[in-house]
């Protein structure tokens, strides 16, 4: 059944989208809310995967392994935050330095470049054992996490501290004038953001059954693609919409990839598109999304001029 097999392709794309979507939430916090281009994320996603894999292999409860991964990511965010706020290293460079250092840390944690979890107990295998169909556990676990996280992040945005954090990304001068220490809020945003990214990496390692030193390469670009697709498809009315939009963007992104790969698999193109080619395609998606609003403005203003 061709159709059914297509649907399964799409479903597994959606599953990856939901799990990676947690990373998208973290990046949304730093990139959109805090207005901080944080390149730590490539390293903290892998860090999450490494910690999760190593602890699972050591027999720790899988959910605890994911929480430990999250904590590791928070520490990575703290390091970037300290580099930026205390040592005054520019935001991009602070993230790059942490990311670079994390490569060593991640290798040390895993002891090798690829850490397999063959036949280990993961959060997914545990649910399978409870009788949930194996094809659905990924999506179910992912969605449960995502729903809880969106509610938590939403509530956080509504607190005094969350409000000050949002204002820091919007107008730091105003926050200082109102007695807020913007450095603290930047740090907090980086900690929470990277915690979410590492949580995503931690789940991913358990889902795919391994952690790899390169699993985080391009995380920032993938995250941006998800955020931007979400913004195109979904209204920005409330933070619920925006956060859900990130997940939807991530899911759509993964489904697009699943479909492209599927088509190329069945067709007779001279060049077969592989998963590695998706990096170029993703970069193009982000470039289009970045310049599209500007192009639209230019087009409209040109149109208006000619109309006169």
């Amino acid at each position, binding site marked *: 059944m061709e159709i059914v097999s297509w649907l399964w392709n799409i479903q597994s794309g959606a599953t990856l989208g939901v799990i990676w979507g947690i990373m998208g939430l973290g990046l949304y916090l730093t990139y959109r809310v805090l207005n901080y281009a944080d390149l730590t994320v490539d390293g903290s996603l892998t860090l999450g995967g490494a910690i999760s894999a190593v602890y699972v292999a050591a027999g720790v409860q899988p959910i605890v392994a994911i929480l430990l991964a999250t904590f590791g990511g928070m520490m990575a965010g703290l390091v970037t935050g300290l580099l930026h706020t205390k040592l005054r290293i520019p935001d991009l460079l602070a993230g790059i330095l942490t990311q670079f250092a994390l490569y060593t840390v991640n290798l040390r944690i895993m002891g090798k470049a690829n850490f397999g979890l063959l036949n280990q107990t993961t959060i997914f295998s545990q649910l399978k054992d409870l009788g949930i169909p194996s094809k659905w556990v990924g999506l179910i676990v992912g969605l449960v996490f995502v729903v809880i996280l969106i509610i938590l992040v939403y509530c956080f945005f509504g607190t005094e501290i969350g*409000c000050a954090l949002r204002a820091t990304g919007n107008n730091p001068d105003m926050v200082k*004038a109102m007695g807020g220490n913007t450095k603290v809020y930047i740090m907090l945003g980086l900690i929470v953001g990277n915690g979410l990214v590492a949580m995503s990496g931690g789940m991913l390692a358990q889902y795919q059954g391994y952690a790899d030193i390169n699993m985080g390469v391009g995380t920032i670009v993938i995250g941006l693609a998800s955020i931007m697709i979400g913004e195109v498809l979904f209204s920005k009315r409330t933070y619920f919409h925006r956060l859900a939009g990130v997940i939807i963007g991530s899911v759509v992104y993964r489904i697009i990839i699943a479909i492209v790969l599927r088509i190329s698999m069945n067709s007779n193109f001279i060049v077969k598109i592989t998963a590695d080619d998706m990096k170029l395609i993703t970069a193009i998606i982000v470039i289009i999304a970045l310049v599209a609003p500007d192009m639209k403005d230019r087009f409209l203003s040109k149109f208006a001029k000619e109309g006169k």
Partner: protein
Amino acid sequence: MLEISHVYKSFNIGTPVQKDALMDVNLKLNEGDFVTIIGGNGAGKSTMLNAVAGVFEVEKGKITIDGTDVTKFPEYKRAKYIGRVFQDPLRGTAGDMWIEENLAMALRRGKTRSFVWGISNKEREQFVELLKHLDLGLEDRLDSKVGLLSGGQRQALTLLMATIKKPQLLLLDEHTAALDPKTAKKVLEITQRVVEEHNLTTLMVTHNMKDAIKYGNRLIMMHNGTIIYDVSGEEKKNLHVSDLLAKFEQVSGGEFANDRMMLAN
């Protein structure tokens, strides 16, 4: 109240473009003083206000507010004592956030922020009352983004934010300069009312000499980083624009006589 003693501040120290923006500034305010500040472009008016607000540290000198030495305090710590409105209407508010969120931030100025959720209905009622008082039609727009407001509405809102929690000191740096004359007048009137209502100790920079004479109980003039003229009481009330112009010419050798900014109404 506020005491500035022997304050010095230079920019780009040790470079060919070094600028000594404040040179031995001394000023002592009494509780409830409403001081207007005038002076040519680059006289150091903004730098003096920024020094008080803690935007940077000064090289030398001491600044105390209400007896507390704040000279070494970072900006956000001094905010506990100070309400501020800037020249740029975009600078005092978070444009992507709602009116009520901006006001809620202001209500917590100088307070430690916590994970307490949301804005209480009581606070909302307070916001509506205060906004009604502004008479700009903002009272039923609590959940409008501030970015949608006009420059005048934004400045009035910033003024409200600066004073919603009574500050020991209010700093206004040409806060009506970016507005059209009619709106500027309205914002100035609101300023006057708020300052009087709460008996706020205020420093107001203005480029308009008439306003400098009309408002406040004391007037100071700055030139080349120092205060060169300081009048209050009856003497200030009886000032005329021509007196101020004469003073300018005297200190600057005539260069300000044609400064259109100074003559603007």
